[in-house]
């Protein structure tokens, strides 16, 4: 059974790499790629090939970098802080503030040391490797996202420069029409950090260093601009 599905997906890999499939087919391929290294490698090869086809010359004028109008002044604001109207804020967001009273403060950190030798880091630059490195970094703030009953669902490492890594431990797989979504908690604000998919792997995100905590919710696939569900797990910190 698996073989037939694998073969059916294989037939789609060329057109998938060329962005020539329907959205529903793209999602089906992406689900398969999460568990099939062979197909992932083929897609990578096709994309490398297609990139070589990109036109080399044109009469177009490339805008100067500073003409692009990129918002580079606030790089940590990778998502817009969400100010949810009161009527749409789930009840759990109110309990978060109260819960903070009982929480152990996380260790405040200074700017994490950064090796200038980028080539050394490069060897370990896959997201999982960097996340593992961050979790082991004594200067990183480490958090565990726990359920109400204390079950640890995922670990998080927060670096002083705003980078963060979500490392799932035992996150139950969701149906394809759902996703996990990680939120930063800062006072009454709930800021989306990352839409993690139905079967999260190690993910990187950016978060402001002065957040109060994190929450993980289950939302509709694609994510939502503000949480609509109670969190399945939370973690709190407070700079000492």
């Amino acid at each position, binding site marked *: 059974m698996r073989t037939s599905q694998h073969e059916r997906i294989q037939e789609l890999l060329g057109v998938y790499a*060329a*962005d020539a499939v329907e959205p529903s087919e793209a999602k089906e391929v992406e689900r398969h790629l999460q568990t099939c290294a062979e197909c992932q490698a083929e897609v990578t090869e096709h994309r490398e090939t297609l990139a070589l086809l990109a*036109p080399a010359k044109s009469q177009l004028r490339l805008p100067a970098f500073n003409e692009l109008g*990129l918002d580079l002044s606030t790089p940590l604001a990778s998502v817009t802080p969400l100010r949810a109207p009161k009527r749409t804020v789930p009840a759990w967001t109110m309990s978060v503030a109260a819960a903070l009273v009982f929480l152990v403060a996380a260790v405040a950190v200074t700017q994490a040391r950064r090796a*200038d030798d980028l080539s050394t880091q490069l060897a370990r630059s896959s*997201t999982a490797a960097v996340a593992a490195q961050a979790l082991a970094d004594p200067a990183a703030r480490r958090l565990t996202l726990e359920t109400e009953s204390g079950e640890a669902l995922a670990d998080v490492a927060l670096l002083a420069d705003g980078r963060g890594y979500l490392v799932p431990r035992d996150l139950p797989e969701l149906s394809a029409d759902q996703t996990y979504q990680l939120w930063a908690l800062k006072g009454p604000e709930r800021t989306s950090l990352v839409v993690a998919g139905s079967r999260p792997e190690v993910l*990187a995100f950016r978060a402001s260093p002065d957040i109060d905590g994190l929450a993980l919710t289950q939302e509709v696939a694609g994510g939502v601009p503000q949480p609509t569900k109670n969190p399945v797990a939370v973690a709190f910190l407070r700079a000492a």
Partner: protein
Amino acid sequence: MPDRQAASDAALMLAVGRSDQEALEEIYRRHAGSVLNLAARVAGSSALAEEVVQDVFTTVWKSPATFDPAKGSLRTLLLSIGHRRAVDVVRSEVSRKRREGGTDVHSQSGSAEGEVLQMLQAQHVQQAMGALSDGERRAIELAYFGGHTYREVAQILDEPEGTVKTRIRAGLRRLRTEMVNAGVNNEN
């Protein structure tokens, strides 16, 4: 990061991860032209292509971890994101025009601007494309540069959908072989 111009793409992306704007600017200098050209070819509009470029570099700035050297070169990543965005633009324009009863944006390839946007492919690419059968080449061009789904390509070419899928996959493999033999790659 003292010498950005000498740094590899991967090193620059690590610097972007540390919010180094000048590293992003160097990446822009190296690769934005390719992204712009590809987006213009797909979207049929230089204005839309500039929006795509802006979108691509915003994505890279905000999500530097999108780049994983184990999954391909930075150039490939930027072009993949740009192509996806350009295709989205084309398809949303097609939907809008169909709703409004207008002409298909795909027909823009024959428009005045489409003529201006004719791009020159490198000689090695032309040679590699020459190794493909006519069916493979037309299917790849319609899908990749035309922004068509394989089902649309099948209708245009009056071929079974399965044939189009097979031709595109086989054509990409043949292209890869040709370009590997020619020593062409996307590495910085």
